[in-house]
């Protein structure tokens, strides 16, 4: 049905329009809040069209896309741009439009104390991001996907570095950009290699080639591996996960939108979109599964050792992305995709809740919060909903999809990753409720009131002395997300969609038990104080040390940078200074010497010039007379 594609196209063009409006009309951008209202109105309209596109989309995987020729050639266009609206892309479109809309509304409250110019810039970036992400989701071929893939990377860079005056934020922005870029190079190589062997970028044509069995199989592993590298960078898989925790330097709504719900899931979406291609290379797929499970476990371990609420959430995002990848690696991409969608809802919810807390307390440190339950009951409820969803408790958003992922990994025969993921489920419940019990329950931390420690940004300017629930602009978005999280959870608990695979009967009880166990341990440790937190930490001495040092992954990268990259730069610098510059310098020295010799001819004596003129004249006369 082209209706769906048409609606999706409107949805895509609206944020582009609002970005252009804000980018070109400078007075509007500098006006701050009006710019925000424009952006919000456009994104609300985009959400409406996205929902229509979703309702009209067919259940079939591939639809004939809406295409325009971009690089025409004699034998059909070399590249096209267009809109591919099928079941997967439209539901993703709805998620992007929804979270983007809610986050923009929320930002009005969260960034209320920003200068007007900065706010306008922020909303321009937000619109650009919405456009880029939608373009990525709707891309019908690899070229368009790659272009929007880079655009979302750019938006991520711009928004992490929104407070560019803060050195950590600027550093984090650059780090995010470079780290994801390392993966993107792989993606680009993969796309070109794929084109070399198939002659097309188009998903539909590639799918037809796969179905017809005409796709050359040998060496395809390299292609899918390169494409997977792009996903590793974007979706923060080990070892390129290091940028995501640092990306939390950006404003919290940005973390909710880009670094939890939408952009980081682009890698998962890419793999879901091309799962028929990856199915041809089981080795790469197994690698995807193993790396995903390992990332999930690693990040969950790291999250247990953090005291910054946003970093805990960031590591939980990395961990959940690992879950999705593991499901894809097991060969059941739709399970991973389902988890992507539910995670988009409750992770955005958690971030918005955390943002409300940070806004009120003026600090990211959970030990400076404490007892927020009384002062901020609304925030506590929605955060609890998010935490229960993330832990995978029945009736909440993440329960069914997590169950599905674990079932998929078991059915896919990846036993060791399955065990890792079950351990991760335990850790997930533990670290989430560690935050909940420390920050929201217990006694209020004495220094929590009005202490603006560690919050270098403008929310510190907000009076932190009166802890209370945020204004409706901030409360409404997270309530909506909470309701949807629970709604999705109840829907899936009551009415199971049919399984693609046979999950064993003991799976669901196991997962629930493990999660409840994690919550129980957190309760005993941080609420009842039956288990001493220090002793518990000491029991995991080495692991804790390693987690505090972020498993030395950052250090390894730094060593690589300092060792290999700097040495290489020095070598290149030497070549430039002595070889390249040397040749140029020799040439210029020769020119100087020659000029110096020649200038002696210029004696300054008029009579010498007369000699010259006379001699020249004579020479000319002789030449004229010379017999030919």
């Amino acid at each position, binding site marked *: 049905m082209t209706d769906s594609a048409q609606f999706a196209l409107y949805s895509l063009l609206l944020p582009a329009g609002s970005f252009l409006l804000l980018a070109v009309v400078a007075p509007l951008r500098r006006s701050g809040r009006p710019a925000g209202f424009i952006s919000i109105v456009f994104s609300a309209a985009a959400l409406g069209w996205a929902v229509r596109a979703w309702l009209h989309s067919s259940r079939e995987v591939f639809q004939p896309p809406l295409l325009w020729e971009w690089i025409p050639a004699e034998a059909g266009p070399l590249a096209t741009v267009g809109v591919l609206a099928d079941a997967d892309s439209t539901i993703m479109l709805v998620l992007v439009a929804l979270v983007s809309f809610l986050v923009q509304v929320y930002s009005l409250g969260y960034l209320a104390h920003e200068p007007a110019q900065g706010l306008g810039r922020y909303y321009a970036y937000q619109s650009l991001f919405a456009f880029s992400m939608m373009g990525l989701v709707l891309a019908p071929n690899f070229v368009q996907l790659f272009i929007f893939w880079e655009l979302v990377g750019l938006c991520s860079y711009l928004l992490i570095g929104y407070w560019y005056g803060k050195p950590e934020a600027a550093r984090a922005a650059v780090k995010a950009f470079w780290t994801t870029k390392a993966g993107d190079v792989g993606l680009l190589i993969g796309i070109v290699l794929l084109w070399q062997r198939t002659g097309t970028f188009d998903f539909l044509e590639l799918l037809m080639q796969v179905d017809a069995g005409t796709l050359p199989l040998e060496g395809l592993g390299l292609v899918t591996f390169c494409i997977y590298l792009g996903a590793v960078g974007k979706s923060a898989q080990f070892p390129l996960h290091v940028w995501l925790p640092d990306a939390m330097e950006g404003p919290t709504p940005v973390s909710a939108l880009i670094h939890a719900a939408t952009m980081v899931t682009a890698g998962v979406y890419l793999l879901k979109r091309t799962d028929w291609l990856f199915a041809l290379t089981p080795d790469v797929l197994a690698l995807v599964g193993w790396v995903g499970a390992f990332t999930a476990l690693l990040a969950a371990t790291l999250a247990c050792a953090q005291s910054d609420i946003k970093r805990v959430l960031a590591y939980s995002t990395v961990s959940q992305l690992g879950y999705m990848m593991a499901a894809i690696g097991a060969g059941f991409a739709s399970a991973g995709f389902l988890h992507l969608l539910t995670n988009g809802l409750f992770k955005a919810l958690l971030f918005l809740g955390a943002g409300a807390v940070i806004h009120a307390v003026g600090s990211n440190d959970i030990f400076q919060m404490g007892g927020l339950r009384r002062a901020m009951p609304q925030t506590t409820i929605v955060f609890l909903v998010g935490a229960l969803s993330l832990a995978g408790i029945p009736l909440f958003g993440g329960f069914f999809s997590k169950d599905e992922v674990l079932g998929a990994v078991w059915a896919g025969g990846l036993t060791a990753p399955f065990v890792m993921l079950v351990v991760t489920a335990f850790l997930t419940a533990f670290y989430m409720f560690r935050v909940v019990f420390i920050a929201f329950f217990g006694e209020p931390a004495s220094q929590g009131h009005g202490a603006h420690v560690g919050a270098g940004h403008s929310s510190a300017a907000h009076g932190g002395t009166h802890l209370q629930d945020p204004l409706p602009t901030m409360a409404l978005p997270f309530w909506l997300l909470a309701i949807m999280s629970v709604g999705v959870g109840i829907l899936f608990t009551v009415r199971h969609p049919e399984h693609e695979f046979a999950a064993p009967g003991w799976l669901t009880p196991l997962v629930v038990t493990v999660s409840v166990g994690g919550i129980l341990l957190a309760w005993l440790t941080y609420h009842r104080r039956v288990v001493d937190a220090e002793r518990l930490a000491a029991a995991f001495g080495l692991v804790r040390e390693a987690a505090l040092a972020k498993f030395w992954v950052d250090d390894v990268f730094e060593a690589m940078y300092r060792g290999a990259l700097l040495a290489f730069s020095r070598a290149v610098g030497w070549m430039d200074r002595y070889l390249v510059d040397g040749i140029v310098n020799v040439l210029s020295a020769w020119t100087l010497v020659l000029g110096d010799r*020649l*200038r*002696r*001819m*210029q*004696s*300054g*004596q*008029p*009579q010498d010039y*007369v*000699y010259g003129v*006379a001699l020249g004249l004579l020479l000319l006369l002789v030449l004229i007379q010379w017999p030919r």
Partner: protein
Amino acid sequence: MPAGMLPVGTSAMPLHAYLTLAATLFAIGLFGVVTRRNTIGILLGIELMLNAVNINLVAFARFNGDPAGMVFTVFTICITVAEVAVGLALVILIFRIRRTVIADHLDLLRG
């Protein structure tokens, strides 16, 4: 034909005598320009060279019966006068500034 004028193409002396005179005069002028150290002397040398040219022009006009050469000569003399006036003015200005008119000392153009 007016009295006292010889017919066109005839003369008491042949053409090469005039040309030799002009060439000699030119050479003397060039020699002066090249060797004189005094700027005024150089100007005088230039005058000699110009007059050598004038002699050439007049002689050819006479022998070819073409009055254009005479007309040219009148122009040349006029322009020479102007040139000498400007040249001398320059020399005076140079003297005022540099307190010398010796060409050797005027080497501002040296590279």
